[in-house]
């Protein structure tokens, strides 16, 4: 497994654990065991589980197993940037949602969008040209 995938998958597992803790707190609030103030964690729970866990795991595994081009993972810098952006975006959106600061949520979601676009650009090349050994030439990382 390449190092970037190790980072992304481990971060995804971390987010899964955090998301499960938040979900347990939400259920306890729903059962009136904890005060309703814990309902503020709902936005964070959703962001952490959907983007931090599911999307990031897909990015990490995708970087690992998508077809290579000429035996390499071209434009790897895009995938590195995508993981970085996702891990800026998720905490920002989660914290902003919990604190009720719309600008933070917006900034976080924009970082998540940028992360999705950059990973899409990376994956596009591999899905489009991967496996076509000796028939295509891809520009190196810029």
């Amino acid at each position, binding site marked *: 497994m390449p190092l970037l995938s*190790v980072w992304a998958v481990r971060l995804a597992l971390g987010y*899964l654990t955090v998301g*499960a803790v938040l979900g*347990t707190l939400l259920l306890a609030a729903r*059962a009136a065991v904890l005060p309703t103030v814990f309902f503020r964690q709902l936005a964070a729970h959703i962001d952490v589980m959907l983007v931090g866990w*599911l999307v990031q795991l897909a990015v990490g595994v995708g970087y690992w197993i998508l077809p290579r081009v000429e035996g390499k993972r071209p434009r790897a810098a895009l995938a590195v940037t995508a993981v970085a952006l996702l891990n800026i975006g998720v905490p920002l959106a989660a914290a902003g949602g919990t604190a009720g600061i719309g600008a933070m949520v917006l900034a976080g979601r924009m970082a998540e969008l940028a992360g999705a676009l950059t990973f899409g650009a990376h994956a596009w090349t591999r899905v489009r040209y991967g496996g076509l050994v000796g028939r295509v030439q891809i520009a190196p990382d810029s």
Partner: protein
Amino acid sequence: MPLVSRAFILTGLAHLLAAMVLGVAVAAGPGALGLPPTVAPVYVHLLAVGWLTQLIFGVAHWMFPGRPRAPSMVSRVVLWACYALLNLGLVARAVAEPLVGRGGGWRVVLVAAGVAQLIAVVLFVGHTWPRVRAR
């Protein structure tokens, strides 16, 4: 494919089917099929936890590098406990959440359901973490 992975994936498919049925009920409006409106979170969790997360658990244990041919007894117990707690927790949550307004034991069941799923996640993360490493 290891037996526990088959169990994760097949049970995940059952949750997917249940989620699709609930999705129809939720879309049909409050009171459809006799279900309360509070069933909407159950629909989302059957999809996101019962199907997607459980599918990932099963496939990750099967496909991630470093799976021993003969897993230790501890490894087997951890994974089967994870499977049991995740599914018991999810089903208990699905039953208890629409009924929690009635108070009493349903509140305890709902909290226990959350704790069971959290323990399942911790078991899976602890079991999988050492296998996620660079070559």
